[in-house]
C-alpha cells in the first residue's frame, strides 16, 4: 500500500505542504496541486489511487471536481476523500452527496493522516 500515488488538492499553501510532507514520510508517492482544474488535467496520466481534496477552493471547488471524476468511467474507481473544516458539519454531507468516498476534517492530524489514508485504500470498493 505504501508507494501508492496520492494526489492532494488544496489552495491553502500551508495545508498542502504539510500534507505532502506527512504522506511522503508515510511512504506514499505524493503530487500536490493548488487547484481543481490542474488536478483534473493531471489525473488521466497520473491515475492516482486516492485524491485528497479540499472542499472550498476558488474557481472549481472540490465538490464539482469530485462530480466530474465520479461521472467519468475512466476515473470513477479513484478514491476521493474530502478535506472539510471541522466547524462545517454540513460540508461532510455535501461531500458524500457529491460522490466523495469519505472525508477527513481539518486541521489534519499528522499522527493519524497516514493510517486514515491507508484505511480508505483498503476498503473493498476501492480495489
Amino acid at each position, binding site marked *: 500500500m505504501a508507494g501508492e500515488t496520492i494526489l492532494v488538492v488544496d*489552495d*491553502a*499553501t*500551508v*495545508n498542502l*505542504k*504539510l500534507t505532502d*510532507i506527512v504522506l511522503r514520510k508515510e511512504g506514499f508517492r505524493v503530487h500536490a496541486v493548488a487547484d481543481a482544474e490542474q488536478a483534473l488535467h493531471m489525473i488521466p496520466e497520473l491515475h492516482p489511487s486516492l485524491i485528497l481534496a479540499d472542499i*472550498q477552493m*476558488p474557481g472549481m471547488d472540490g465538490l464539482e471536481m469530485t462530480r466530474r471524476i465520479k461521472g467519468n468511467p475512466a476515473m470513477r474507481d479513484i478514491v476521493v476523500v474530502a478535506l472539510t*473544516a471541522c*466547524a462545517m458539519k454540513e460540508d461532510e454531507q455535501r461531500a458524500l452527496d457529491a460522490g466523495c468516498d469519505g472525508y477527513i476534517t*481539518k*486541521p*489534519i*492530524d*499528522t*499522527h493519524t493522516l497516514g493510517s486514515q489514508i491507508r484505511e480508505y485504500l483498503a476498503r473493498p470498493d476501492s480495489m
Partner: protein
Amino acid sequence: MTPEPRRQGAVAERETQELWKLPDSLLEFVDSGDEEMIVEILTLFQHDSAERLRDLNVALANKDRDAIRKQAHTLKGAALQVGAMALSSVCLQLEKHADRTPEPELLELVCRAWEYYERTCREMLQAYHT
C-alpha cells in the same frame, strides 16, 4: 460614570484563547530533530497569510463580501493548522458574519486579524527564528 454599553455583533465576540501554540503533532517533528520542516511550514504560513490578508483588504475595499468570506475561510484553516488560535478565531468570525455584519465591524475584524498575524509572526520569530 455610565458604563459603556455592551457591544453586539461580530466584533463583540473578543477572542480569549492564546495567540499561538505549536500543536503537539507538529512539535513531534521538532522533538524528532526535524525542526527544519517546522521552520519551512511556519515561513510558508507567514508569507501566505500576509498575501491573504492583503486580499482581505482589497475585498473589503471592494465591498465584496463573498471574497471576504472565502479568504477568511482559507486563512482560518492555515492558522488552525499551525496553532495560531487567535488569528483562526477572528477569521472564523469574519467567515461567519461576512454576509450581514456592517462594514465598520468587518473593518475592525480585518484590523484585528492583521494585529494577531503580526503578533503571531513575532512569537514565531522568537521561537524558531522564522
